Each structure stands twice: as structure tokens, then as C-alpha cells.
């Protein structure tokens, strides 16, 4: 079946502009995660959705970052007033809690470049 998809694959924006990143999880996966991967570094957790609720937002770096999820499906990560330090690959993952594995399945990511 289809995997996790993300759009756009690449986004170049000017400092101070707002951006929206989209994630389409695997159908039926109730859990959805956003991570950030800076160049040459590991992944940083940003936010976790269970259904349309976000019980864990502990990784969001500032109030410029927000996310929502609708229909227990698509999620949008919004970054307002982008800064150069926001440049990174943003990865979305989904999983189906309750299975034996808890493994997460990742999308290809959105590469964000803030100029």
C-alpha cells in the first residue's frame, strides 16, 4: 500500500515568511509524528498526534511552530516568521499503536531552506 507522503519535497523561502509543510500518513495509522533533521545531525522530535489531538508538543522549539491534524489523516506543520536556523529536513512518521512493534514509518521529508 501507499507509504507516508510529504509535500513539498523542497521549499526555499525568505527569512520572515511563513511556510506550511504537509504530511499524509499511512491510511489507518492513528499516530503521527513530526521530526526535524538538521544537516549532519540526528532527528529531533517535534510533536506527536494521536488522532486529531496533540498530547505531546514538547519538542516544538518556539511558538513560531505549530501543527494541526484533521480527519485523523493529513497533518500540517506551520512555521511562522521563518529564521535561518529553521533550515532542515522535516520528517513525518506514522504508526499504529497497539501493534506489537511501535515502529514508525517515515515519509521522504521536506527540505526547508531559509535564505
Amino acid at each position, binding site marked *: 500500500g501507499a507509504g507516508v507522503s510529504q509535500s513539498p519535497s523542497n521549499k526555499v523561502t525568505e527569512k520572515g515568511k511563513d511556510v506550511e509543510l504537509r504530511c499524509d500518513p499511512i491510511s489507518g495509522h492513528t*499516530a503521527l509524528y513530526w521530526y526535524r533533521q538538521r544537516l549532519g545531525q540526528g532527528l529531533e522530535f517535534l510533536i*506527536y498526534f494521536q488522532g486529531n489531538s496533540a498530547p505531546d508538543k514538547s519538542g516544538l522549539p518556539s511558538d513560531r511552530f505549530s501543527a494541526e491534524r484533521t480527519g485523523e489523516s493529513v497533518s500540517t506543520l506551520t512555521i511562522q516568521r521563518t529564521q535561518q536556523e529553521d533550515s532542515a529536513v522535516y520528517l513525518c512518521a506514522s504508526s499504529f499503536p497497539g501493534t506489537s512493534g511501535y515502529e514508525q514509518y517515515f515519509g521522504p521529508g521536506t527540505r526547508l531552506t531559509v535564505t
Partner: protein
Amino acid sequence: AQSVAQPEDQVNVAEGNPLTVKCTYSVSGNPYLFWYVQYPNRGLQFLLKYITGDNLVKGSYGFEAEFNKSQTSFHLKKPSALVSDSALYFCAVRDMTTGFQKLVFGTGTRLLVSP
């Protein structure tokens, strides 16, 4: 806090030789451990997991990992490396300290397999 460490930034191995990518963990309670691989400009792909049971876990593409509780390690192994195995490998542990699940990743190890 739950964490994993990958002590090697890069591992070099000749094709046909066995490979090991190291990972150590620090968790409270029973660890749920994962290995992911990332090819250039791609998202992370799940390789294998340890939840419970046999200490030797087999995964995708001929990879396996050995869970060692006394050494708090979860090293990734393959008996015979392929050039196509060259990629970035991440070890991860499930973190439930906030009451909700997320993965905490290591900094990654680049594997380079030479012909």
C-alpha cells in the same frame, strides 16, 4: 531521560566483509530499540526492532542486531557487506517519559562499503 549513543561517525568496510555498527542505550525500564537506515535524499526506513525475546533480532536486507543487556548495547550486524549498504544508520529507543510515545534517535553512523 532515555537516550542512545552511536560512538562512530563513520564505519568503513570492504564488500564481502562482516560489518558492525555500534549502539549503546540508557533507559529506565525495559528498552524498545530500533534500527533505521537513511539513503541519500530519502526518509528513514525501518530495519529491525527489539521488544522482548531472543537477543538476536533479524531484520530487512540481511541485517541483524544483538541485544546485550549487561553491556546495554544493541549493535547492528551483517555477515557480508554490500556496496549498496552504504548509507546513514540510526539507532533509536522508545521514550515514554512524557507518558506518550516518541523515538529518541542517535546521531547516526555513516557506513561506507568499498568495492
